[in-house]
């Protein structure tokens, strides 16, 4: 479904990704793990169109997307959820969902129902400013917003970072439910979440893919994975 072939990415003269290749099959949930600065976020941003590779190709369902602007990539069914948990805080929760529905061409009522199915408590907050939501609620709203319009692929950066254990359970439940309907590439440091949800793991180190894990036994071995964090 998605193929990233030998991409290099640089910030100015500083090369951040070196010859990175990953692939994702339809319906797969792929996790990218690695230490801070390994290039995980840069990889997601590059797939999403916010950064352009200086070398290599990215293709979605056989079509090249590496030269496209982020909005063009999004319109091809790739949605990016950034690490910063930044919702449109001056808009209401409903307003946030409305923009996603408008962008995706989905009726608002359908979009609201879709997001509230992930987190029914949003029903009580719809008219509240999104800036008043907790970190976990913001993350759920961001994932919900990204799911509006039934995208093909979700790119999610550190969805559980900085969240309480009880909220992580909510995120885990949502990601588990997503597996049925959408493919995903998720950058995540919480190995408990990774080992339970991953179909494939890419381990990144210093801007390169260090290892690719596909064996379920290896994926579930969190002790081994910890060596890479």
């Amino acid at each position: 479904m998605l193929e990233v072939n030998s991409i290099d990415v640089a910030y100015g003269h500083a090369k951040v990704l070196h010859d990175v290749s990953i692939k994702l099959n339809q319906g797969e949930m792929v996790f990218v793990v690695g230490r801070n600065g390994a290039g995980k976020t840069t990889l997601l941003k590059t797939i999403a169109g916010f950064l352009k590779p200086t070398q290599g190709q990215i293709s979605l369902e056989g079509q090249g997307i590496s030269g496209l602007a982020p909005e063009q990539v999004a319109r091809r069914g790739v949605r990016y959820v950034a690490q910063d948990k930044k919702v449109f805080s001056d808009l209401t929760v409903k307003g946030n969902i409305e923009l996603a529905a408008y962008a995706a061409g989905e009726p608002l009522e359908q979009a609201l129902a879709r997001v509230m199915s992930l987190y029914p408590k949003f029903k009580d907050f719809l008219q509240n400013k999104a800036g008043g939501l907790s970190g976990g609620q913001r993350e759920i709203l961001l994932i919900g917003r990204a799911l509006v319009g039934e995208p093909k692929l979700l790119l999610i950066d550190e969805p559980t970072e900085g969240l309480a254990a009880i909220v992580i359970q909510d995120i885990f439940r949502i990601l588990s439910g997503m597996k049925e309907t959408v493919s995903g590439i998720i950058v995540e440091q919480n190995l408990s979440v990774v080992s339970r949800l991953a179909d494939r793991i890419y381990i990144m180190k210093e801007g390169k893919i260090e290892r690719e894990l596909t064996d379920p036994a290896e994926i579930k071995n969190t002790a081994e994975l910890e060596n890479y964090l």
Partner: protein
Amino acid sequence: MIDTILYGLTIGAILYIFSIGLSITFGTMQIVNFAHGMVYSLGVYLFISFLPWTLRIFPLAMALAIAAMLPVAYLIERFIIRRLYGESLDYAIIATYAVLLIGADLIKYIWGTAPQPVSDPIGVPLVVLGVVIQLYRVVVFLSAVVLFFALRIFFTRHVIGKIVVAALEDRDGVRALGLDVNKYFSIAFVIGSGLAVLGGVLYAPITTSEPYMGFHILLLAFAVVIVGGMGNLTGTFISAFVLGMVIAITGRVYSSAADTMVFVVMALVLLKNPIFSFVRRLRGRPAHG
């Protein structure tokens, strides 16, 4: 004192109407747009030319001037401002300042350098607590208040307004949804430019129009936007009236210091929010997509 307050409210109203476009451009595009002053002054001169053609029907000439400047504003956004996204702040200043200078020279070439007076279109005096004030000034103030609420409705209820509000906060977040922010910035830019012309035309009967009129109000408007917060539309409204009152009250005591006091207030605000963070915000533009 009543006339001083009314003068402050009038100047505040004009500053607010003019500054909205600047505030949106600052907030969404992180571009310091000196070309806004050209749109303002050229719009006023067109209005002055349209007045005799429209049998001196003020609102009709004003509508024609605004309509005439909207395509000009679109072309400025499409071919100058949009090319400056992600470029150095200095390029934006140089390019838009060049547009401002070209506008002033164009006005001098077509209309000459002599100041152009416009008479009060209402010309009805009111007596309030024994003081004579012009009804026109009350209309100008009320226009700004009505505009403020109209824009609030637009930015909170209309989906295009919501997209602009969202982009003011997180441009990349809007793009990640699949929305082409440039399209909405163009709409916001053209609306802001139309309002600049509106402000200029409303101000024309209170002052005299001259080719460099855009330079003066531009500096005051930058102060309004910085004090009110870049992209903060409510802040811009409050800041415009506060600075309008500063101009009016200072002018009553010592008229030569009226504009200076505006920049003293701006300096105090920047001391609280250091200028370096202000410049960093301008320079910290999003990654070029």
